[in-house]
């Protein structure tokens, strides 16, 4: 951390920059607390009597709960599945590296560099034949695959820092591999599991390419629901804002908590 005190102009500039970057979000939140008439008012109102009316209307729409639930299922379900697959994989690579380990890890990371358009057509056709289209669990499965490399990498980087001695001690005491992972490794890996999970939830929650193409009325998460406002020309800005606000607020808060992990997770250790 720098210890130097900047000139006050630079501090002011930093505040200003932060304000400008945050402004569109602030404006969305503000609009979410307006009535429809105030949302469209000209000149735009900074001060108004806030109302929960739009928020209430947005949330109580019959389908809002379903989309919200789909977002929860696809984000949490995919994260759980990714962790379930990634913990053993990262454990194996971190504690028992072979000459092939760097290659395997790199290959996993390379799958994250595959543009979704490169694979969506066959996946769509297969899902159609399996009747998995518009199925929230199928979407969760896709998200798990999408986030698996990031989760594996985050866990791997952390596991490599765990002293091998404590694992060896457990092994000498006759612990099985599963016991070793569950009873020794996981209890000391809380921060890594948490940051991998946070990152995976954020990425899954905000994803919209797969959800727009693989889901319809039943399984679509909030990203698809919010996208349906794209044709609502002006008439429902307050409700749109209120619905969007609930859709982005949890993830923004998680993002604030996950700033550091984000850098590590998304760069795969390319920046130290």
């Amino acid at each position, binding site marked *: *951390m*720098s*210890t130097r005190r900047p000139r006050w102009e*630079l*501090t002011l*500039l*930093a*505040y200003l*920059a932060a304000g400008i*970057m945050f402004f*569109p979000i602030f*404006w969305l939140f503000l609009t979410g607390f307006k009535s429809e008439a105030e949302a*469209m008012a*000209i000149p735009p109102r900074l001060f108004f009597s806030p109302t929960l009316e739009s928020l209430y209307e947005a949330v109580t729409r019959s389908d809002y709960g379903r989309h919200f639930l789909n977002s929860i299922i696809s984000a949490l379900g995919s994260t759980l599945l990714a962790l379930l*697959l990634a913990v053993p*994989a990262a454990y*194996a690579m971190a504690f*028992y590296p*072979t000459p092939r380990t*760097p290659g*395997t890890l790199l290959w*996993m990371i390379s*799958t994250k*560099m*595959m*543009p*979704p*358009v*490169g*694979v969506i*057509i066959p*996946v769509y*056709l297969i899902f159609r034949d399996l009747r998995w289209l518009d199925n929230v669990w199928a979407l969760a499965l896709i998200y*798990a*695959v999408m986030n698996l490399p990031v989760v594996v990498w985050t866990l791997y980087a952390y596991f*490599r*820092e765990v002293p091998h001695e404590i694992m060896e001690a457990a092994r000498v005491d006759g612990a099985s591999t599963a016991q070793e992972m569950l009873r020794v490794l996981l209890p000391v890996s809380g921060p890594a599991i948490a940051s991998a999970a946070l990152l995976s939830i954020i990425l899954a929650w905000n994803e*919209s*390419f797969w959800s*727009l*193409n693989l889901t319809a009325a039943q399984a679509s998460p*909030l*990203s698809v629901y*919010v996208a349906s406002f794209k044709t609502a020309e*002006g008439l429902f800005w307050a409700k*749109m*804002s209120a619905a*969007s606000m609930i*859709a982005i607020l949890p*993830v*923004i808060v998680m*993002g*604030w908590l996950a*700033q550091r992990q984000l*850098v590590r997770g998304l*760069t795969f*250790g*390319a*920046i*130290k």
Partner: protein
Amino acid sequence: MTQTQALVRSKTYRLRPNTAALLAPAILLLVVFTQIPFVLTLYYSFRRFNLLNPERQGFVGLENFHSHLTDPIFWTAVQNTLVLVGSVLVITVLMGLALAVLFYQDFPGRGLARTLAISPFFVMPVVSALIWKNMLMHPVYGLFAWLAQRLGQEPIDWLAAYPMQSIVLMVSWQWTPFAMLLILTGLQSLSKEQLEAAKIDGANAWQEFRYIIVPHLAQTLSVVVMLETIFLLTIFAEIYASTSGGPGLATTTLPYLIYLKAFGEYRIGVAAAGAVFAVILANIVAIFVLRLIGRNLQGGRT
């Protein structure tokens, strides 16, 4: 081999878990959902395959690729993709650099200011498209229109008059925090001694920035550029929710074109050929990132 060595050996051997079995589920899933589908995409790209007429299938050689290469729409989409990625890269790297230098300084409330500044990265792309399209850029009720009027200008219908610039602005807003965070991480590994030494040697702020900070950041910046390129090449939701690729083809990028061919026109073969182009484009960059990551993997603990 002494007895103890043999014992240790057999013991470690016995104690070594079956790593292949531990890795298999993760590898299997990645193969099933990324490698096999891509092979199928390749396969479709050489076939005539239209979902509206699925019986009429067959090998057509390079015809799908040829139809793209001779179609001006394809070249427009490629050009739009490159313009979008290139412009966003330049803007986000410059803005990210400026913001990182600002937030590198120590000032009261820095944590809060930095947290506010990175927030756009966590906004769902669909939502950010709606915020910009409706509440900021709308020609009648948008904030920009009101500002223009206050300044005595005619309000502009941004997405109609400057569609690509508007998308670039929107996407840059989202990705500047990513660049900033990465650059800030790079900056924090800069040694204080070096900066102090430069100051003692009489370097001013600009010289310090130009001759110490920028060279130090060279690797960080190359990572930012490469990773952003890979992610930006897949931009879809922002365009889908704001302009739908229009007006005309003004904001139709390669992913959006493939989407239109596959899910709008049901031309699977042609869309698959487009997807193959998209993968090649992404791989050109990915090779360099992977090489860099691979080098870091070999070199000690990360």
